[in-house]
């Protein structure tokens, strides 16, 4: 489409970073720069997708050198889906942030945009990277921007949560990096496509697998290394919470997918994938139960993230066994549905907080009357989280159940259904009070800016629409690199 796919790949990475520089250089125009560049980035991602659909998967050799000497960017169906997910959620959050950061808080407004654009750029770079060390650098970019965004709101709880997030994130990065060292020591390559052909069972691979998986678990908040997530996601500003839960925490999981499919696959029949699946089960149960107990809205949503992340790990053993395309389709559609629904949930929390100043769920009585659009937003998001038809969450869970049944994993089926019931529990905890009539008049409810209300609502609608787009998503995912051979040398 117009340009070669590789040009769009570079553009999708360079645009947000260039915008971030500009927003930092001209802080008074940060908002305008943020809005314009977001539009351009979304268009580029769409162009990249169209180009991929037309021309198939692509490999862009940075500097023209080609792996193993240089770094390659790889765009296939999975990258495209992740990029689209980031673009859709990112656009909504951009519009939301326009209304969220008022003109009088110049400090936060001036710093939000460069940090957010850096985060977007790092995500795009991460989803296109084909080199395990390059993935480390993009992970660092992602982590630092996420931490700074968490601390931006300035409350003591947020700053402490950000500190904890940073320390856990850095521990994870260092473990991942040592894993990269073992891979290079044992196999002499850093490019994923090359490694796919070079790796074999052996101690260096065990060491690398342990280090990299545990490191990525820390960054991706898989039980039991999830403890940093609830305070960080709950105390950040609403658009930041949405970014963190919907996008940031998915990136380490994406890397784990790539690694286990292409680099660590000789270890597929060890206990490791089963352990991950078991931890996923624990995450679903623990996260959901904790969500049921939270008196504050954002903490409930944050624990819901812990639980929903568990679903992603349930089918890892199946992914590595066989029937990869279908299992991948189930996992990825869950990731995408959750992103839209969870972002919508956090944004609606932000709306409620903006309007009433109260985050306690107990105070939500009668909100349906005062904030109908916001309550509808959360209801739709909840629909997807509980996985009722016709939402994206429903399709995703249906695919997961289908795969679990096909493999005869009855306990997984039980867990998935139980998780759904628990989710229904915590969603109704929030929605229930809103339907009831309020005895006393609500005290000065502030109007929610249109940008905030509409962007949140749009995301929740997207979560539902995803239920009808399952076929397209699976088709897109099917775009795979044709040949595994790498040029150059």
């Amino acid at each position: 489409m117009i340009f070669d796919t590789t040009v769009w790949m570079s553009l999708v990475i360079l645009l947000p970073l260039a915008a971030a520089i500009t927003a930092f250089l001209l802080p008074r125009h940060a908002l305008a720069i943020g809005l314009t560049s977001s539009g351009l980035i979304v268009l580029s991602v769409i162009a990249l997708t169209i180009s991929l659909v037309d021309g198939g998967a692509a490999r862009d050799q940075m500097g023209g050198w080609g792996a193993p000497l240089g770094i390659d960017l790889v765009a296939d169906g999975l990258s495209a889906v992740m990029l689209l997910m980031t673009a859709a959620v990112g656009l909504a959050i951009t519009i939301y942030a326009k209304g969220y950061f008022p003109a009088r808080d110049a400090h936060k407004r001036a710093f939000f945009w460069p940090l957010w654009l850096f985060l977007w750029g790092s995500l795009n770079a991460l989803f296109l990277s084909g080199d395990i060390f390059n993935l480390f650098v993009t992970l660092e970019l992602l982590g630092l921007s996420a931490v700074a965004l968490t601390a931006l709101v300035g409350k003591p709880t947020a700053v402490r949560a950000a500190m904890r997030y940073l320390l856990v994130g850095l521990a994870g990065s260092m473990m991942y990096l040592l894993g990269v060292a073992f891979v290079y020591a044992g196999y002499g390559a850093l490019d994923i496509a090359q490694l796919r052909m070079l790796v074999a069972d052996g101690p260096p691979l065990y060491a690398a697998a342990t280090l990299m998986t545990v490191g990525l678990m820390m960054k991706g908040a898989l039980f039991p290394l999830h403890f940093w997530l609830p305070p960080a996601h709950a105390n950040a500003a609403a658009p930041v919470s949405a970014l963190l839960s919907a996008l940031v925490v998915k990136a380490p999981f994406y890397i784990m997918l790539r690694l286990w499919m292409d680099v660590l696959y000789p270890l597929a029949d060890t206990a490791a994938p089963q352990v991950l699946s078991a931890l996923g089960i624990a995450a679903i149960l623990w996260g959901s139960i904790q969500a049921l107990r939270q008196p504050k809205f954002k903490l409930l949503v944050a624990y819901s993230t812990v639980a929903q992340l568990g679903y992603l790990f349930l089918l890892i053993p199946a992914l590595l066994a066989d029937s990869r395309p279908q299992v991948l389709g189930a996992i990825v559609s869950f990731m995408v549905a959750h992103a839209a629904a969870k972002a919508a949930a956090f944004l609606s929390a932000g709306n409620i907080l903006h309007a009433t100043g109260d985050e306690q769920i107990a105070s939500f009585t009668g909100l349906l009357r005062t904030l109908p659009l916001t309550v509808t937003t959360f209801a739709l998001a909840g629909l997807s989280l509980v996985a009722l038809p016709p939402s994206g969450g429903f399709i995703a869970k249906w695919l997961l159940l289908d795969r679990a049944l096909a493999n005869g994993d009855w306990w997984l089926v039980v867990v998935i259904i139980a998780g759904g019931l628990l989710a229904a529990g915590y969603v109704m905890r929030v929605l229930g009070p809103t339907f009831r009539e309020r005895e006393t008049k609500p005290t000065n409810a502030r109007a929610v800016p249109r940008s905030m209300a509409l962007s949140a609502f749009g995301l929740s609608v997207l979560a539902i629409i995803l239920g009808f787009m399952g076929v397209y998503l699976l088709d897109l995912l099917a775009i795979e690199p044709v040949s595994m051979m790498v040029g150059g040398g």
Partner: protein
Amino acid sequence: MTETALLYMVVGVVLFGMGLFALVAYPHLLRKILAMNVMGTGTFMVFIAIAHNGDNQPIDPIPHALVITGIVVAVCSTGLALALASQVQALTGQPRIDGSEREE
């Protein structure tokens, strides 16, 4: 692997372990940040060891370049960590983040 390289790798891994322990076990923020740096240094040592091809042999430049990148990234992370830590101290009076502060 040459003997020198083995020695450096083992020392690097041990440093990594020591750093990981201190990062997890001790509550003072400054100590955690220093521990993170020790972990990083251990990892870098492992990379440098991999690059060794024998005395007076040309080195493998890839790990060296990776370490330079890694050092810069570690310095930047440390810088942000220190700024955050000093902000934690300014806001809460204590250079530590243990104890639950689930909600505001």
